[in-house]
């Protein structure tokens, strides 16, 4: 079977990656000088939690384990990203090599 799959040029991929970076750097520039102390860059999940507490609801269960500090939390988040990145990198590298052999 003949595949008519169209693949993007490297330059297109790079432009897309650049758009992504601009998209996520823009808020940092827009609100530069602001921080957690004046209510910027907090998490939406926490904001929702606060909105729920304002309605008078008492959380009835708390996490069985919590990262004991922000350092440990960032460690575990980095670990989560690393697990994902290793898996994707492994398979993409393997497939790329496979394609070259053929």
């Amino acid at each position, binding site marked *: *079977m003949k595949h008519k799959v169209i*693949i993007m040029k490297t330059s297109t991929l790079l432009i897309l990656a650049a758009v992504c970076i601009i998209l996520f750097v823009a808020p940092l520039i827009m609100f530069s000088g602001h921080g957690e102390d004046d209510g910027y860059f907090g998490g939406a999940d926490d904001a929702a939690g606060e909105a729920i507490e304002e309605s008078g609801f008492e959380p009835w269960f708390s996490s069985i384990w919590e990262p004991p500090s922000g350092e440990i939390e960032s460690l575990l988040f980095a670990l989560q990203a690393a697990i994902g990145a290793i898996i994707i990198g492994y398979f993409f590298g393997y497939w790329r090599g496979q394609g070259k052999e053929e």
Partner: protein
Amino acid sequence: MHIMEGYLPLTWCIIWFIISFAVVAFGIYQIKKIVDETPESKALLAVSGAFMFILSSLKLPSVTGSCSHPCGNGLGAALFGPAVTAVLATIVLLFQALLLAHGGLTTLGANIFSMGIVGPFVAWIVYKGLTKANIASTIAIFFAAFLGDLLTYVATSFQLAFAFPAPTFSEALVKFLVIFAVTQVPLAIGEGILTVIIWDRLKAYKPKLLDKLGALAPNEA
């Protein structure tokens, strides 16, 4: 979109748990079937899960001045459908509930429902609809991932408005939509673009496998 541990009334925890359990069970059955029929797709399952692992760990700033994270659920949905993606989302959400105190065990069902079921279902419908209309799969995957991400957060807003309809349901819904959905718009665009990049590479490396899974547009196969 993580509803925090203990932040949903018990009745709602049970309702979402039952719905999500049924879909996840069906997803596990589907994974068995897919792996039996196409053993090569195991690697694609791993990549789809890994993509969710990465994207949901990235707390990104948004133009609203608060931070949120993408979901990565559009890729799995386009490849394997929503039920299989629900299984992958369960793994991610369990990791975050147990190790990061993000989300929780009591709210696991509710969080699977938004990130593992509603988002992927929307992404899947959008993807299949657009590719059937002979739109190139790379374009279709952008809209699938964008809407899958956005609707995940809309679903969370609805879940919270159902559970806390104070003062009225619609006012509560607007309040939660402002917190979640508005912040999410630029992130969803970013997720769309990242999914396009991954999709392009998958098409370059594994076109036959994508075709076998029925994940390409008819004119690409």
